[in-house]
């Protein structure tokens, strides 16, 4: 844990993530009390104007403040990310841990299902399902994303459970006659918490990305403001060909920043778990060279003496 918090990449990543979480919490309040506006308010005197004193990040073609939308949109995006993340990791934990722990036929079946779902291209599948729905709001989008995101997480969790199952402490518990549920919930789950939190973090960010993507593809109405709906709006209103860069550049950068922060935290986790990634292999090479040279000398001597 200490190693975790002193790692530079992890620190930077956590600070950014914390910032976004804070923004998701206070964003709407910030907009109403500090900017004194809301993302839907229309300024008829400023339709589609560029960044300036009145509107720091300009306005949309219908005169809505882009900065207000950007700050409010954080909550919308993070909500979808969190909901889909909870669903994805929940289903994954259920299926992955069950399969990994029980083994045998159950595991074979669950692994097969997981692999099938992991191989099917999720984006077209989501598009099709959403295409048949009459109402697609943020919650439905989050559910859809979570439903197609779990297989990747399930694989990790199954592998981890499989390796935990063989450990001595689990074997010992089995000898003692501990109940299976207690073993899974009380003994195995805490050992998975590290993997779970890393997977959850990644799932949340994937959710934010996927939401933006689906919005961009025209899924869902304008029920809430998210970074995804902002970019989708820019595309629908031909923002690019009208040179309205402030419509799509800020939300995209925020999404990317969120993704980078997660990548940094996960990098840090990888480095802690696998020191090879951090240190140069040079020292090892030098050691090996010395070792081999010494051995060569030794064999030579042996040959000479015999």
């Amino acid at each position, binding site marked *: 844990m200490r190693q975790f918090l002193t790692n530079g990449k992890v620190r930077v990543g956590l600070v950014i993530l914390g910032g976004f979480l804070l923004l998701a919490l206070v964003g709407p309040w910030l907009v109403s009390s500090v900017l004194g506006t809301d993302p839907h308010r229309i300024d008829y005197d400023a339709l589609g104007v560029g960044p300036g004193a009145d509107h720091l990040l300009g306005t949309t073609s219908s005169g809505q403040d882009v900065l207000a939308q950007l700050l409010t949109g954080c909550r919308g995006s993070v909500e979808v990310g969190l909901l889909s993340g909870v669903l994805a990791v929940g289903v994954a934990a259920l299926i992955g841990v069950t399969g990994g722990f029980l083994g045998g036929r159950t595991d074979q079946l669950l692994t*097969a299902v997981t*692999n099938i779902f992991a191989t099917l291209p999720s984006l077209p599948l989501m598009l099709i399902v959403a295409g048949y729905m009459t109402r697609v709001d943020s919650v439905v989008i989050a559910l859809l994303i979570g439903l197609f995101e779990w297989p990747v997480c399930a694989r990790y969790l199954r592998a981890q459970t499989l390796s935990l199952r063989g450990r001595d402490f689990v074997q010992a518990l089995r000898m003692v006659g501990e109940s299976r549920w207690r073993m899974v919930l009380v003994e195995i789950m805490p050992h998975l918490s590290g993997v779970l939190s890393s997977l959850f973090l990644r799932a949340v960010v994937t959710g934010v990305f996927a939401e933006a993507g689906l919005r961009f593809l025209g899924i869902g109405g304008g029920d809430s403001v998210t970074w995804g709906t902002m970019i989708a709006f820019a595309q629908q209103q031909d923002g690019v060909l009208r040179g309205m860069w402030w419509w799509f550049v800020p939300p995209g950068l925020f999404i990317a920043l*969120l993704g980078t922060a997660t990548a940094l935290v996960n990098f840090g986790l990888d480095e802690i778990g696998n020191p090879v*990634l951090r240190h140069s292999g040079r020292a090892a090479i030098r050691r090996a060279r010395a070792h081999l040279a010494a051995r060569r000398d030794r064999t030579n001597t042996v040959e000479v003496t015999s």
Partner: protein
Amino acid sequence: MAATRAAPVPAPTPRGKSRGPRTGSHAGWTFLLRRLGFYLVTAWAAITLNFLIPRFMPGDPAVALLKNLQQTTGAAPNTAAVRAVRMFYGDPTRNLLQQYLDYWNNLAHFDFGLSVSHYPTPVSGIVLDALPWTVLLAGTTTVIGWLLGTLLGAFVGWKPGGRADSLLTPITAFLYSLPPFWLALLAVYVFGFTLGWFPISGGYDPDVPFQLNNLWFLLSVLRYGALPAFTLIFIGINGWMFAMRNVMAGTVSEDYVLLAHAKGLRPRRVMLRYAARNALLPNVSGLALALGSIFGGVVFAEIVFTYPGLGYVLFQAVSSHDYPLMQTIFLLITLGVLAANLIADSTYVLLDPRTREER
């Protein structure tokens, strides 16, 4: 079916002739056959999903479809149209099993119904027109992106913590986090709108006749495809570089790499022939895994650049509720991804001696 997915990290099995139970001299073939079985089951699952989704969604898509038809054609659909729609979505008076058999029968005859938004064009015609564009765009960009990314990753991962690594890795992390559709928008904005270097929509110059043996036509295809292709390659490179960098960082301190150093081989040779060659394996199976998501990137690029491929047609089909078209494209994409996966798996067998027949 356990552990069917090729293990991303080579298992530490001894390479020489082990005394333990041999995996059989046809290990490679067994592996491939099992994969083939898996893909067949997955294909069946996809086809069945394609059958089930419209039938279990709230509302009757057939009714929606007929209403839609009425709107597009301006007249009440004739009996032939009603029959075509019912054939695709099933007659509610028939039971599900009979519908399922009908559905397979139609598939076997390559009968995918008629498009609603382009009524009465058969769906298969629209799809066949769009397919070459997507195959061209996705195929070239995937291969180029993979090659460049893997090479770059090998270079960066060669000295983990080195200057190239500590500089490039955070930058790549950021670039990798850029949403693909956003990057495509930015590319249009910068290189198409502001600088005006490239055309920003379409697949070829509309002033040039559509002829495959016309050099000007082919050149215009290249010119129009350049911006979407660059965007996709750029997105691809980052992901592969990441993956390769991490595996490479692990291999550089492996014994066989150290031995190669100790033998006094040139560093470049050690890097490419010893470390990178072994680090490559996970990236090959990674290619298979990623093919499904690669298509996502292509869909976005095609929409932003209004490129006349499957992704753009799918987008149009979804926004105009053209269900037959939508579902046929989904099926085609899925089967294509599965086939590509199988090819990548076979390549894996060729590259990894442990899955190959031992001589």
